[in-house]
């Protein structure tokens, strides 16, 4: 087929001038390691952003709401310019183990305990793609969808 031959040349031209970077393929392969089999998924349902100009805590605040798997996770990311603090609340409120996963970090991520009121804090969060994992008292697990912090 002459058309198929021509499309083959188009493909070769783009692969020569703008190939997929190997790092992009490697990141795709590595994504599988983040799978938590059987976990429920809370997806991003709302996102708000505002600048906080006044006071010592001036900067940028992003409010993210994730819903699904029977929970709501409200997160505020406060960017002071010197770093990012993540505060959150899990509803219904339970004492859960909370892990912050981050694609830029080698480790499994930082772990904190949510209080009985469902509140939790991560003091220093680097920029990049991140997701929260909640281990609930009933032994079930909920992950939030990945977002760029």
């Amino acid at each position, binding site marked *: 087929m002459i*058309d198929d031959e*021509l*499309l*083959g*040349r*188009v*493909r*070769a*031209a*783009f*692969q*020569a*001038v*703008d190939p*997929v*970077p190997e*790092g*992009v*393929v490697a*990141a*795709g*392969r590595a*994504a*599988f390691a*983040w*799978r938590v*089999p*059987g976990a429920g*998924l809370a997806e991003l349902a709302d996102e708000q952003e505002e600048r906080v100009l006044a006071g010592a805590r001036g900067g940028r605040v992003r409010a993210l709401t994730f819903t699904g798997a029977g929970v709501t996770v409200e997160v505020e990311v406060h960017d002071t310019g010197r770093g990012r603090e993540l505060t959150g609340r899990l509803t219904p409120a339970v004492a859960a183990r909370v892990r912050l996963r981050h*694609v830029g970090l080698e480790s499994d991520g930082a772990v904190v305990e949510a209080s009985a009121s469902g509140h939790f804090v991560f003091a220093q969060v680097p920029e990049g*793609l991140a*997701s929260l994992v909640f281990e609930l008292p009933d032994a079930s697990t909920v*992950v939030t*969808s*990945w977002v*760029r912090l």
Partner: protein
Amino acid sequence: MALDRLGEPGALVRRARDGDGAAWARLVEGYSDLLWSVARTTGLSNSDAADAVQTTWLRLVEHLDRIRDPDAVGGWLISTVRHESLRLVRHRPPPPDERPAEHSATEQVVLAREHVCRVGSALRAMQPRCRNLLRLLAAAPSYAELSAVLDLPVGSIGPTRARCLAELSRRLSA
């Protein structure tokens, strides 16, 4: 790995669900070129396109158990990378003191490497719509998977493809 040698994508999804990392790797290797092409034809820079593609794979990982039709994973991936790319386009407007780029990322690359081959040169001379369509068609296994990103009904992809290929042919023989 070319998509036509990938085998059945749905089978790879089912195997990945069962924890088969090799099946996952084959999916990634089979679809990376297409996802990269979709991200780049929305006009994203290299780093933003990389971000959109990485986010797409993370989305598939979190949805792996929830994909209703594993055989349609190609269409799901294409829709997702397009959605993530357009979100980045919206969230990262050029700074106020920077003029909007006159050419998309794809166009710049083709312009810069015009000498690479006659096909590149002919593609450069074409309208972005035809150029992007041919890039995506060249990277995609089927029309059905592409209809979402092309903003074209499946039925009109064939005629548009024929028209763009005829134009490319004309330019190559001119």
